[in-house]
């Protein structure tokens, strides 16, 4: 599958298709991307457009030069999307597979409910990063805001900087790795031991995000669910 993907890419590498939102409507740009089976595309003048490159289903390479609005790369399947700018709310929300790379900062709810693939944020991410995460992996090279990984079910979040308040509140089975300080942990989220399997996982995600060995996995702390609130019990009422 990977070979087929690379082959399809190679066939189209010779020609980048330019989509200029100064002259195309959002619908025209998205329709072109959604119908393409493979290829490389460069989107110019996004000017904060919402839902840009949302709902892609094929292994395209899409480069967006500029800032994007809400839900860029939303529900992405297979495509590799690079945003040379900042991203608004819900970048790569509910991504199923593929990769979304934000070269700037990301607003709130980045990667919300994501199911698969990899979201890389070179800058900082705002509140509710990875909320209700369902399997997507997220690597943030800067810091993240409050309520990250709220009710996160599955997937992994790696943060090289600091985390805000209530990290991992009501978290289920998602895994969190934070290199910097955590302002506070949310309900039922605790620090956990780093075992070899976690170091291996963390290293692989750092590698995937292009982060070299100068960043040592030993600098991170793992966080996850204490699993004390998985079944409602009256004695835990004070926790809610």
């Amino acid at each position, binding site marked *: 599958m990977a070979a087929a993907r690379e082959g399809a890419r190679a066939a189209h590498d010779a020609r980048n298709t330019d989509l200029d939102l100064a002259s195309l409507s959002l619908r025209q740009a998205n*329709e072109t991307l959604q119908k393409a089976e493979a290829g490389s595309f460069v989107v110019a003048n996004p000017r904060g457009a919402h839902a840009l490159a949302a709902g892609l289903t094929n292994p395209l390479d899409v480069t967006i030069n500029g800032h994007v609005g*809400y*839900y860029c790369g939303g529900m992405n*399947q297979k495509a590799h999307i690079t945003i040379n700018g900042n991203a608004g*709310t819900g970048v790569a929300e509910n991504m199923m597979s593929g990769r979304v790379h934000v070269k700037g900062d990301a607003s709130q709810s980045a990667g919300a*409910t994501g199911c698969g693939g990899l979201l890389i944020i070179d800058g900082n991410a705002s509140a509710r990063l990875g909320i209700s995460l*369902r399997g997507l992996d997220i690597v943030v090279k800067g810091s993240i805001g409050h309520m990250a990984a709220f*009710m996160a079910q599955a997937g992994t979040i790696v943060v090289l900087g600091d985390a805000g308040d209530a990290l991992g509140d009501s978290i289920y089975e998602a895994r969190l790795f934070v290199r910097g300080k955590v302002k506070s942990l949310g309900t039922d989220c605790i620090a956990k031991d780093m075992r070899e399997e976690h170091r291996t996982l963390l290293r692989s995600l750092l590698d995937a995000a292009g982060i070299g060995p100068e960043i040592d996995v030993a600098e991170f702390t793992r966080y996850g669910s204490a699993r004390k609130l998985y079944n409602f019990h*009256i004695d835990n009422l004070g926790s809610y």
Partner: protein
Amino acid sequence: MTGDERWIHTPPRESATFDRATIAEIHRAAATGIYDIRGFGAKRKLPHFDDLLFLGASISRYPLEGYREKCGTNVVLGTRFAKKPIEIKIPITIAGMSFGSLSAPAKEALGRGASAVGTSTTTGDGGMTEEERAASSLLVYQYLPSRYGMEPDQIRRADAIEIVIGQGAKPGGGGMLLGQKISERVAAMRTLPAGIDQRSACRHPDWTGPDDLEIKILELREITGWEKPIYVKVGAARPYYDTALAVKSGADVIVLDGMQGGTAATQDVFIEHCGLPTLAAIRPAVKALTELDMHRKVQLIVSGGIRSGADVAKALALGADAVSIGTAALIALGDNHPRWEEEYRKLGTTAGCYDDWHEGRDPAGITTQDPELTKRLDPVAAGKRLANYLSVLTLECQTIARANGKSHVHNLEPEDLVALTVEAAAMAGVPLAGTNWIPGRGPQD
């Protein structure tokens, strides 16, 4: 013996304030320390469609011939923006109910029953099952705050999308599927371990407020090529403003769920004490649509306590384009049927009162994931029962419409109605029977 000995003690007198149900609840709360959780909808007496009557024909209004003259029942939903609006043959749809809260055969039966009479059914938390997609000719896909099981490929396989803001039984509340109903299959669909309680969030994770909702709707349209109707479902709380904001946000269809609407599980205090009765919610919503010149352009589906064709007709006369049923559909499948009385007794209840849908022990095999109980529900037979029931609702609605001289059920109007109580007259905006008085309005309003 004078015969007066019996009057030494006054006969037992039940308090209106502390009636038996209230006293029992205090005892239950004192014994357990936790609020009561249950399914079903509001059980308290509320102003409802029973408080309205149709006038029928008279010298100035002539009727249509039953069984002879046509009375249309079809409804087209999604005419505002969707490239592919859907047409239902009857003005009654099946409300969203999840696989998880309901068994797989129950979901299949809902699809079969709805499809047999040409209407739609709706998914719920946890996403779409193959059984219900295969059984449903028209399937509306709920886009819920939890996003459990939500996948873009499922959205593309749906015929319409319903963004759920809230529901009438618990406007402002999320959901809770208790661990005992989380089978391996349910757990896998929701990406959570089996056996743990699953909280369904009360707010969407990636948008807040009407401006964000507009962008979320844009995203869903972009992902589906602007083909599918997009519904917005709200619990009846502030229907005038919620309707206006849903229109502003770009909805094709608004689903308005009154407080009698059912739920799989929530706190009894929530069910009984939050939200507006369905009767009180319709006119403000229609007013908002009318003021925006969107009545009949953005379709309004009303739900919450619809039981009969008369209820359907009354909701339509007040301005709805269609209605939706949930609790009544489950009853049609076999919920609370007397045939299970012996087992209801074992559960401490009786047929007609069973509401512990959250516990997963439903003798009828509907609100359960227990493999043995689930087997009891034959989706073909149950689907046939639902189809029968939907046909009866439609025939009853047509009967009333013809009697009021209407060649289509959408031609029913508030002028055809009067109210039996002052409250209903005020809420429905129709005169108190025998008067021209609509409380809260002047004679010319």
